């Protein structure tokens, strides 16, 4: 239902009736697409099928033709592309103005946005002009019988799941953290319609100017099978953790404390303001186990915790716990894994 | 700055406010002595600044658990104070490692207000309320600010305080030092010499709750309504071979359990303070009272026990010293009183400052009424009365803390032995057991004479 059908004349159809389609914002930087966008396209496909609506990928950037094609392969029925140098690199005001123009006449029913820094920056900016209902950090999505989005997110520190609804306003917007949903494999032979939309923004209108940008490719811990996470207990000394991660062929991840202290890059942060991971094995070294952290790693299959504080909350969320100094335990684990006899073991 | 309608009647913001000499008096510390001085001076019309280093008054204060309110009653309406229970029973018990011999008092009159002016309180709540009374009387309370030193005029007169905040100096005619036992400011300003370890007791304490069901405290301590108990424990089973004692006080729905003993003993072979507390809590006569309890909060404190000999000079040009900072604590084993002395000294000092302010004088002599009235009051009277007791207890420590508890317990067991022997034999055995410890009848008489001061 691309544009509003002519409703009956006297009562103009409410915003809810005119809205249709599920949109997913595809976040890319210089053509490099964030994995969370593909995750949301897979989830968006499911919601669109439940609603009997189209799944629309929204791509705003420069030279993003092949991003649009990949979006079709990954399930989009249609792609709206705003392609212009003004959109590279990402800036809130040009993207906001362009989104507003698109939404003016084709009101999407649902808009899904990745909960990255860029995604949150964008969502806050566009929710206002669209007078949309915006729910942040959603962990579950569903639609009820009359097509209303049910966005569930942890409230009160994570031990309660609140269902947020948006009865009278469209679009219903939600930001979702990386790793919450899984990505389906692309189907190259899928067909879809790519529409190049009018670009309504010029550089002269821009309110901000990106003067420098130094960005390396971001580690993607969301689909790692094994993870070694470091927390405040490491006091910044990550040698033993890196060695253990190597021995386990695991990705290094971190609690917010380790990221705030600057020991680990933010892209490796697990938790409410970081990523959600679901590895087979999650080893937490010196992680206290704050609720906001547990929220990001609770889907792990097997959780191991090493902490010298027997009361650390992490032990409540671990299958196996070793109460001890990680600077002793981690090296012994590494040597044991590399097949040599554990020296301590021999002496006992 | 836009001037819109409703903003007109509010006062324009001040760019660089200064409160130098805006207050007559600055009180250092919003504990019992500090708030007593503050409410007294505020009631006399003085502008008072009450500075507390904790997040709220009481945040830095730990004490055993009983507040004595004879003076407090004159300053504020105690009936609206957040008290836990009134003390309806005082119990003194001697503990050897597994015996207990106790004496319990439950005078009927303690059930009638003012309940012998003895209430259990929790300082985290009570001190906040008490400081609030000073604020209501007109004082200004400033929290989360630590006084780090005193401002001195060239002639040495104290004329304000320095704090740990930027632009942190503030001047005033009078300073009341109520900083408690760790009196760093008074010591730093050479108003008193640091105490010796022998004159200091270390106290550790827990507040315990009984999670399974309410009414446990009333059942276990045989109480009705808001009556409470004050149990004191001496001897080896309480604090090992140290000089000191243990206590249990009942709060409304928690229990305060702890002990205090000479720091010099703690430094010796005595186990660590919290291990001593564990041993006391697991004594067969104590453990049943605490079965199923869970720790709500753990705390520790040092108590000045030098008695009258270690009370410093109380008045200086521009300043007075009150409460624990002045060493005004009576602990002679039988009496454990600091709160009443703190409030009394704060009150008398507050009146002396108000009186001096009226006469526009800040010299030391202008505050003479404070030490003089303190001399005549129960504070110094009690300190001097029991000054001798601590030395004597120290010299007789093995007898009092080790041998006597055993002797009393064994004598009791003998006296009430149930077998087929005649009572006369049991009485003789009991007497023998006691005399063996105190050195016969003459020894008992000598001992009684030696401690006659307690009753005279």
């Amino acid at each position, binding site marked *: 239902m691309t544009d509003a059908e002519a409703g009956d004349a006297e009562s103009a159809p409410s915003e809810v009736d005119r809205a249709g389609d599920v949109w997913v914002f595809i976040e890319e930087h210089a053509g490099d697409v964030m994995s969370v966008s593909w995750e949301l396209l897979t989830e968006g496909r499911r919601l669109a099928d439940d609603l009997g609506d189209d799944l629309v990928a929204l791509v705003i950037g420069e030279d993003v033709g092949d991003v649009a094609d990949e979006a079709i392969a990954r399930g989009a029925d249609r792609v709206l592309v705003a392609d212009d140098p003004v959109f590279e690199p990402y800036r809130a005001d040009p993207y906001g103005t362009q989104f507003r123009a698109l939404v003016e006449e084709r009101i999407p029913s649902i808009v899904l946005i990745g909960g990255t820094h860029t995604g949150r920056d964008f969502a806050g900016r566009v929710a206002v002009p669209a007078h949309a209902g915006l729910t942040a950090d959603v962990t579950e999505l569903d639609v009820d019988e009359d097509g209303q989005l049910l966005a569930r997110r942890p409230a009160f520190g994570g031990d309660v799941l609140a269902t947020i609804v948006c009865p009278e306003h469209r679009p219903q917007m939600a930001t979702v953290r990386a790793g919450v949903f899984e990505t389906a494999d692309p189907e190259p032979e899928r067909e879809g319609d790519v529409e190049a939309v009018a670009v309504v923004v010029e550089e002269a209108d821009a309110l901000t100017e990106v003067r420098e940008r130094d960005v390396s490719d971001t580690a993607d811990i969301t689909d790692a099978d094994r993870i070694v996470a470091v927390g405040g207990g490491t006091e910044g000394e990550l040698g033993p953790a890196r060695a253990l991660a190597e021995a386990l062929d695991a990705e290094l991840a971190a609690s917010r404390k380790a990221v705030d202290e600057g020991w680990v890059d933010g892209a490796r942060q697990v938790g409410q303001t970081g990523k959600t991971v679901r590895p087979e094995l999650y080893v937490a070294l010196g992680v206290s186990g704050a609720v906001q952290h547990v929220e990001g790693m609770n889907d792990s299959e097997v959780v191991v915790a090493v902490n010298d504080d027997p009361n650390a909350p992490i032990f409540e969320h671990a299958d196996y716990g070793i109460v001890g100094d990680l600077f002793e335990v981690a090296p012994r684990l590494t040597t044991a894994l590399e097949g040599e006899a554990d020296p301590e073991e021999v002496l006992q | 700055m836009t001037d819109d309608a409703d903003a007109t009647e509010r006062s324009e913001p001040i760019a660089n406010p200064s409160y130098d000499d805006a207050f007559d008096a600055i009180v250092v510390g919003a504990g019992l002595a500090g708030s007593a001085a503050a409410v007294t001076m505020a009631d006399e019309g003085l502008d008072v600044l009450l500075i507390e280093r904790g997040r709220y008054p009481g945040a830095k204060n730990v004490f055993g658990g009983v507040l004595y309110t004879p003076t407090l009653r004159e300053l504020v309406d105690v009936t609206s104070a957040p008290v836990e229970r009134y003390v309806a029973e005082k119990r003194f018990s001697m503990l050897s490692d*597994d015996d207990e011999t106790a004496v319990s008092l439950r005078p009927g009159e303690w059930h009638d207000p003012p309940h012998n002016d003895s209430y259990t309180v929790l300082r985290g709540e009570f001190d906040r309320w008490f400081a609030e009374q000073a604020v209501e009387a007109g004082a200004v309370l400033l929290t989360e600010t630590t006084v780090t030193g005193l401002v001195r005029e060239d002639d040495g007169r104290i004329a304000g305080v320095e704090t740990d905040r930027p632009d942190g100096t503030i001047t005033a005619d009078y300073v009341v030092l109520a900083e408690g036992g760790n009196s*760093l400011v008074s010591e730093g300003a050479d108003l008193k010499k640091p105490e010796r370890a022998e004159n200091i007791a270390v106290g550790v304490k827990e507040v315990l709750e009984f999670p399974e069901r309410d009414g446990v405290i009333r059942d276990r301590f045989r109480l009705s309504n808001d009556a409470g108990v004050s149990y004191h424990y001496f001897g080896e089973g309480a604090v090992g071979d140290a000089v000191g004692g243990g206590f249990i006080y009942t709060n409304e729905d928690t229990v305060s359990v702890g002990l205090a003993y000479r720091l010099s003993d703690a430094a010796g072979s005595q*186990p*660590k303070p919290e291990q001593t507390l564990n041993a006391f809590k697991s004594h067969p006569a104590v453990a049943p009272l605490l079965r199923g309890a869970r720790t709500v909060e753990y705390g520790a404190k*040092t108590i000045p026990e030098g008695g009258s000999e270690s009370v410093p000079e109380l008045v200086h040009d521009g300043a007075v010293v009150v409460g624990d900072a002045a060493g005004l604590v009576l602990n002679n084993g039988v009496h454990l009183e600091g709160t009443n002395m703190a409030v009394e000294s704060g009150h008398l000092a507050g009146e002396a400052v108000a009186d001096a302010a009226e006469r526009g004088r800040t010299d030391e002599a202008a505050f003479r009424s404070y030490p003089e009235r303190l001399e005549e009051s129960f504070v110094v009277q009690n300190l001097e009365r029991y000054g001798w007791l601590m030395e004597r207890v120290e010299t007789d420590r093995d007898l009092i803390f080790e041998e006597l508890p055993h002797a009393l317990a064994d004598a009791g067991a003998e006296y009430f032995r149930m077998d087929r022997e005649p009572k006369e034999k049991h009485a003789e055995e009991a007497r023998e057991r006691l005399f063996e410890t105190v050195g016969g009848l003459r020894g008992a008489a000598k001992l009684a004479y030696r401690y006659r001061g307690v009753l005279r």
Partner: protein
Amino acid sequence: MSATPNVPNVDAGAPSAENDTLEDRLYTVRYDDPGESHLDVKIPGICAEGCTTYDCIDVCPANVWREGDDGVPNIAYENCLECGSCRWACPKGNVEWTYPTRGAGVSYKKG
């Protein structure tokens, strides 16, 4: 360190086990980290060469003062209950004991 007085393991209700370790007790106290320690030794040399009794370690109710490897105690200030025992107990007066600043340090709710 003499052992705890031997108290018969009488089922007179041993204290509830789960909260008598020191860690559990310190867990019940709120502590706002002032960022740097308010406790120190004045002159490390005095501890290293001069001290044999280490009274500071004996008297501390919160295990803040601990064995240091070079004879100088190390200080876990975040457990400090601000009782002041270490300051009085040190036979050489070598403990620098100051107040944590601006409301930081321990905050007793009960007290």
